[in-house]
């Protein structure tokens, strides 16, 4: 047919990068919703009292308190949490400044092991209990140990297939998010809002710790040690692996005169993700700082801080030397005048979009908490979060600087949750039960 000989339309590949970042976010949210609905149906709501952590240190919510008391208690909890996050982020900045990267790397590997081993083990035990799966202790321990070790290797050393690394990052995000959904209800919602505000402040204020971290990393031309999800870049024009590596090198040429639009997008991708990563890492870090009996906490702390040594090992080291002479020009200077918004999002370039694991976690916490009410809120919040993510990516293309990924999505998510719970549900149930639809 004539169709087969026509050149490919732009519609075939447009928007691929966005989908490559939306897909894992959706998978993580979906898994958390499944976990929450499967595991929560058995446990009662009074288990909220059993979760002791930094996030409930100020106030433990009980069902009998009035709404105002719950709100004030939740506010206190969140303030404590955000304060601890800020302190830990500043410590991270200090350590990075003092070039203790090895220590950070080891700490991250250790946390990944504890998250996968202990948190994963705990959830696996719940599942075994619920579904009465016949498995003996020794098999279970061996399997869990192997699972955790492979996970540490996957995020710690980059010689694995990218799919394995991505899968393990999503699993880590899912486990941490599930733990967060076990917090009491008011505390969770106020905490989400507080973390979104913190993210906004830490990235955009000149004194914000995340901004300092980004600037340090840019000035030293190093990777920030943190857990980050990297969507594979789109290969353009048949460039193979070399092309990909070369393009990622371009990404690291901050301010180089390579004014392909690639370089424009990549520094930004770098910054965007950085912000998210750190906000994520800190939040989880804090949870762990707790002098708590459960060892899960400790895992979380180290968890996110180490990151992308992964990429360093991928053979970029020889190319690093080429960048030493890169002048420290504001990436904005490299923007070509005719760059349309579409190219800015990375649609026309092959830059990889990176999203910090903290964003995965908090999006999933929001959706998981919505799942504890009803599935209608889940669908509404999912759409809101994806919309927020799209808006953030568009803003990134527009402003070409580091942007926090949490605020827009969390704001839209909370808004849609409230609207759905109080307005939409009554309307839809009323119409549906009378079999009136439109």
């Amino acid at each position, binding site marked *: 047919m004539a169709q087969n000989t026509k050149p490919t339309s732009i519609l075939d590949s447009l928007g691929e990068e966005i989908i490559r970042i939306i897909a894992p976010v959706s998978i993580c949210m979906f898994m958390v919703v499944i976990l929450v609905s499967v595991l929560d149906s058995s446990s009662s709501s009074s288990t909220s009292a059993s979760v002791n952590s930094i996030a409930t240190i100020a106030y433990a919510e009980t069902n009998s308190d009035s709404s105002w008391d719950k709100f004030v208690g939740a506010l206190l909890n969140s303030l404590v949490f955000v304060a601890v996050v800020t302190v830990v982020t500043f410590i991270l900045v200090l350590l990075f400044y003092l070039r203790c990267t090895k220590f950070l790397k080891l700490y991250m590997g250790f946390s990944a092991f504890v998250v996968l081993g202990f948190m994963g083990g705990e959830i696996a035990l719940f599942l075994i209990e619920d579904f009465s799966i016949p498995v003996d202790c020794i098999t279970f321990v061996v399997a869990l140990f192997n699972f955790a070790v492979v996970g540490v290797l996957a995020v710690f050393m980059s010689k694995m297939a990218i799919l394995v690394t991505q899968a393990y990052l999503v699993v880590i995000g899912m486990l941490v998010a599930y733990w967060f959904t076990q917090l009491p209800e008011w505390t969770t919602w106020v905490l989400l809002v507080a973390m979104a505000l913190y993210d906004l402040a830490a990235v955009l204020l000149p004194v914000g710790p995340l901004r300092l971290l980004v600037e340090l990393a840019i000035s030293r031309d190093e990777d920030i040690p943190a857990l980050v999800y990297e969507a594979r870049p789109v290969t353009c024009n048949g460039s193979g692996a070399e092309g990909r590596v070369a393009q990622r090198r371009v990404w690291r040429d901050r301010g180089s005169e390579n004014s392909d639009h690639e370089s424009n997008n990549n520094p930004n991708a770098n910054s965007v993700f950085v912000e998210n990563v750190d906000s994520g890492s800190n939040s989880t870090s804090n949870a762990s700082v707790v002098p708590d009996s459960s060892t899960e906490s400790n895992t979380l702390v180290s968890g996110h801080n180490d990151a992308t040594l992964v990429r360093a090992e991928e053979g970029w080291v020889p190319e690093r030397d080429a960048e030493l002479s890169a002048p420290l020009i504001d990436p904005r200077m490299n923007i070509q005048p005719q760059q349309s918004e579409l190219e800015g999002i990375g649609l026309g370039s092959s830059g990889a979009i990176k999203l910090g694991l903290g964003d995965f976690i908090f999006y999933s916490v929001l959706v998981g908490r919505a799942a504890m009410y009803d599935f209608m809120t889940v*669908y509404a919040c999912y759409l809101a979060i994806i919309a927020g993510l799209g808006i953030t990516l568009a803003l990134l293309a527009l402003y070409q600087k580091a942007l926090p990924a949490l605020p827009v999505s969390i704001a839209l998510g909370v808004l849609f949750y409230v609207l759905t719970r109080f*307005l939409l549900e009554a309307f839809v149930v009323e119409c*549906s039960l009378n079999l009136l639809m439109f």
Partner: protein
Amino acid sequence: MTVAAGIGYALLALGPSLSLFVSVISKKPFLILTVLSSTLLWLTSLIVLSGVWRVFLPLKSTSWWPYGLLIFTSIAFQEGLRVLFWKVYKRLEDLLDNFADKVSKPRLFQTDKMQIALAGGLGHGVAHAVFFCLSLLTPAFGPATFFVDRCSQIPFFLVSAIIALAFVTIHTFSMVIAFNGYAEGNKVDQVFVPVVHLVAGMVTLVNFASGGCIIGIPLLYFIASLTLIHCGKMVWRRLTENRSRQGN
């Protein structure tokens, strides 16, 4: 009743959309984004409508005219949003054509434009199925089932799934018809879509009568197949005249 039944109801409402999605939409990332945006748009319109109508709920269940008014206003609002959707799409089409020129690729084909319209319609349909059927399915995964008084022969979940399937079809293909109508300036198509939507909504009022769903649902499917046939004829006509134009 059990997970199998729950999944069955979900697939009944969303099965064809899932196959459409996997075969046509999932291959082009832009179409996936279109589906997500149009789902969000439909959800927003539903939230606005529920915000407006919330104060009047719950309506008296004896008379049918408050419900008629509710459906009429909702459909009018959604059809208005469809025009808005079309205008946004026009601007997007210009943007995409400019982008195509810049990367020296061909401009949007006729089939591309129709696929975008299909994706938009699918988004609306999926949103309808999700919010009117899927979100109420949670009890269906448990051990029991539920019957409504007015349609007591079959479980409520089954009825809502069947109605949702009809509406998914109507929404999906009327978007294609509507976009084509606006593009060609074809008055018949432009009027066809709101009328069909309104008629379909009003037909569900028939369900209000006791035992009415026996008449209401076949009528709904008649309207759905009408939409499908009209869309098929229109697409066939467009594609053949396109091909003959290229042959010249």
